[in-house]
C-alpha cells in the first residue's frame, strides 16, 4: 500500500520536477558555472575562478552600475509596496463592504492585469511621448504647465513613472488577493466585535489585519521577487540601456545587456552577465527565504 502510494507520488510529481529541473535548476547551475569561466566573445575559454566577480566589483564602470541598478530595484520595491499594495489594500477593504457595483469595480480594477505587458508598455510610452502624447497635452490643457516634462526621459522622474505604470497594471492582483483574504475572515468574529461595540478602525486593526497576514506574506514576497526580477516593462518602455543615463537601469536589464549584448552598442560579456545572474539569485533566495520565515511567524492560525 505504502509502496504504491509512493509510486503514484513519483508519477504525479515527475513531470513538474522534470520541467523545474530543466528550465529552472539547470540554468541556475549553468549560470553559476559560466560565471567561473573566462569568455572570448561568445566562446568559453579556461576556468577563471572568481575573476568575473572581482571584475564586477572592482573594475569601473561595473561596481557603479551594479550599485545603481541594485538601488533602483530597492526603490521599485519600496515604491510598489507603498503605492500599489497600500492602495490595493484600501480598495480591497472598500470592496469587502460590498458597495453598489462591487462586481463592476472588481472587473475594472483587474482589467489591466489581463492586458499584455507589451501592450501596456507601448500604450504608456505613447501616452507619455513628449511630442504626441496625451499626458502632457492634458496637463497643459488643465493649466498645469509646470508639470509638463518628458516623464520617461527626465532622469529625475523616469524611474518613478515606470513604477507607477507597473502599479497601474498590477493593482488588481493584490486587490483580489486581499479581498479574498478579507472575505475569508469568519463573519462571527466581525459580528461579535461589532456587537461588543468595537469601532470600525479596531475591527480592522485587531481582527482583519492579523487574519490577513497570509495574504500579506504572499503579496510582499511576490512584490519582492517581482521588483528584483523586474525586466519586461523597463525593457519595453525604455530599452536595454536603462536610459536616460542609467536612471531606469535595474539588475535584470544589466544582466541581459552584459550577457547578450546591446544591438549596435555593446558587446556580449557572458562572464559579467552570469556573475550578475548569480548575485541576483543569491540576493533573492536569501531575502525571500528570510522574509518569508519572518512574515510566516506573524501569521495567525485560524483554529
Amino acid at each position, binding site marked *: 500500500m505504502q509502496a504504491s502510494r509512493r509510486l503514484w507520488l513519483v508519477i504525479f510529481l515527475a513531470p513538474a520536477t522534470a520541467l523545474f529541473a530543466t528550465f529552472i535548476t539547470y540554468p541556475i547551475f549553468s549560470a553559476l558555472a559560466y560565471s567561473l569561466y573566462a569568455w*572570448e*566573445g*561568445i*566562446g568559453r575559454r579556461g576556468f577563471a575562478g572568481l575573476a568575473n566577480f572581482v*571584475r564586477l566589483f572592482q*573594475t*569601473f*564602470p*561595473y561596481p557603479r552600475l551594479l550599485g545603481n541598478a541594485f538601488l533602483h530595484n530597492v526603490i521599485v520595491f519600496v515604491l510598489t509596496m507603498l503605492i500599489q499594495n497600500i492602495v490595493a489594500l484600501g480598495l480591497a477593504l472598500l470592496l469587502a463592504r460590498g458597495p453598489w457595483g462591487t462586481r463592476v469595480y472588481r472587473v475594472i480594477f483587474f482589467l489591466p492585469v489581463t492586458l499584455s505587458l507589451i501592450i501596456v508598455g507601448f500604450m504608456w*510610452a505613447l501616452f*507619455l*511621448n*513628449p*511630442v*504626441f502624447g496625451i499626458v*502632457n497635452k492634458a496637463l497643459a490643457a488643465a493649466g498645469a504647465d509646470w508639470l*509638463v*516634462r*518628458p*516623464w*520617461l*526621459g*527626465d*532622469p529625475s522622474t523616469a524611474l518613478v513613472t515606470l513604477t507607477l505604470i507597473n502599479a497601474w497594471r498590477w493593482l488588481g492582483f493584490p486587490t483580489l488577493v486581499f479581498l479574498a483574504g478579507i472575505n475569508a475572515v469568519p463573519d462571527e468574529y466581525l459580528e461579535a466585535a461589532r456587537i461588543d461595540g468595537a469601532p470600525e478602525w479596531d475591527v480592522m486593526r485587531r481582527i482583519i489585519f492579523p487574519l490577513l497576514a497570509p495574504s500579506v506574506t504572499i503579496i510582499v514576497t511576490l512584490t519582492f521577487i517581482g521588483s528584483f526580477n523586474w525586466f519586461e516593462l523597463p525593457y519595453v518602455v*525604455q*530599452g*536595454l*540601456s536603462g*536610459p*536616460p*543615463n*542609467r536612471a531606469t537601469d535595474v539588475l535584470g536589464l544589466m544582466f541581459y545587456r*552584459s550577457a*547578450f*549584448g*546591446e*544591438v*549596435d*552598442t*555593446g*558587446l*556580449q*560579456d557572458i562572464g*559579467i552577465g552570469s556573475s550578475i545572474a548569480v548575485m541576483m539569485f543569491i540576493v533573492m533566495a536569501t531575502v525571500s527565504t528570510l522574509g518569508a520565515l519572518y512574515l510566516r511567524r506573524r501569521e495567525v492560525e485560524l483554529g
Partner: protein
Amino acid sequence: MIRRLLTVLVALMLVATLFPGEVRGQESAKLTFWSWRTEDKGAYDRMIKVFEQRNPGIKIEFVPFRQTEYNTILSSALTGGKGPDIIHLRAYGGLDTFAAPGYLAPLDYDKVPELKRFPLQTMVGARSRKDGKIYGVPFATQTLVIFYNKKIFAQAGVSVPKTWDGFLNAMKTLKDKGLTPLANGGKEGWTLEIMSGVVAPNFYGGTTFYEAVTRGQTNFRDPTYTNALAKMLELRPYMPQGFMGVDYPTMQQLFVNEQAAMFIGGAFEIGFFRQQNKNLDFGLFAAPPEKADQVPWVSSYADGNYGINAKTPYMDAAVKFIRWTATTEFGQMFTDLLAQMSAVPGVQIKDPLLQQVQAMNRKATPYIMLVGFRWQAPTGSTLLQSALQGMMSGQMTPAQVGDEVTRGLSSWVDSFRR
C-alpha cells in the same frame, strides 16, 4: 476504394514535399541566410533570385529576425552548434564577437578574390583583431549627415548653412517662426552618439585626433575632444520640447511628417524617409565647420558583412554566394534596391542624394567609437551613449563625459591607464 486510393496519393504527395532535395540528389543545396534586416526582405529575395537562376541547385532562404533579438538568437544558435549557413554580421567588434571564438569561416583573398578590389579602410570592419584574418564581405558603408526639408527651408528663407554659426542662426530663424528646427531626441542613447559623430569631428580635427587617440597618444579626457562634445549643447534649444523623452521613431515621424526642419542621422535613413512620405522633398549636408573655407569632416563606417558559419555543410555553395555578394553586379542591385551605399567598388550611383554622400566621403573620418573602441566590453559606445544622455539632460559636463568614457575604456585600452 477510391477514397483509400486518394488518401494514399495525398500521403505520397505530402511525403514528397517533405523531401524535395532527395529527388534532385547531391548537387542541390538549401542554404539559410539569417539577417536582422526585416525591412529589406523583399529586396534580398529579389537579389537571391538572380543568384539562384545563375546557380541552379543552390537555394537560399533569407530569414530576418527582429533587430533587437538578432544577437541573442544568433549567438544561442552558434554556441549550440547550429545556426544559418550565411550570416548577416555587423562590422568591427560586432563581427569579432563571433569571429574570435571561431564560429565564422575565415575568408581570404584566395577564397574570395573579389575582395582584393575593396579599399583597405572598408576591410578593417571585416577583420578579426585576434588573428587579423578576414571573416566577411562588407556590404555597405554608412555616412553620418544632416537631413533638411527643402520646403520648410525655402518657406522660412533659410539656406543650407556653410559655417557652424550660420547653422545656429538658421535654426534660430526657424525657431522664431514657430518651427521645430531639429527632430533629434535623447531618449535612445545611440541617436545622441550619432549626433556626436556628426557634430564633433569638425571641432576635434577628424582623423588627426582619431589617429592620436587610437595610437594611445591621448585619450578622451583631451579638451580637444570634450570641447567638441560641448558644441552639442548649443543644439539643445533647437531640439523638440522635452527632447530627452523623444525616441527614434518619434524623431523619424517628426521629420517625415514635415513637423521638424532637420534630422541629424545616417545616410541609411534615405530609403525609409522616401518610403514613408513620397512627397517629402529633402536634401542633406555635412555638419558645417567653424569657417566657411574648411571642408567638413564626415563620420563614416563599414556597416556590416556577410559571413559564413564555420560549421556549414554547404561550404562550397556558401563561398559561391559570398563571392557573388562581392561582385559589382550585386553591389549595383544593392544600391539601386535599398538606396544605400554598397561597399563594393565600381558601383554606379544614380541617386543624387547618394552621389552627394559619395562626394562628402572624400573627407571621411572613422566613426570614432564604433571603428576604434567597440572591440571589447564595456564598449566606447555604451559608455558614451549614457554619458551623453547625462550631458544633454544637464547632469554632467563634457569634461565628465570624457573622463567617464576614458575610465571605462581603460579596462581594456592599455594606453588609457597611464
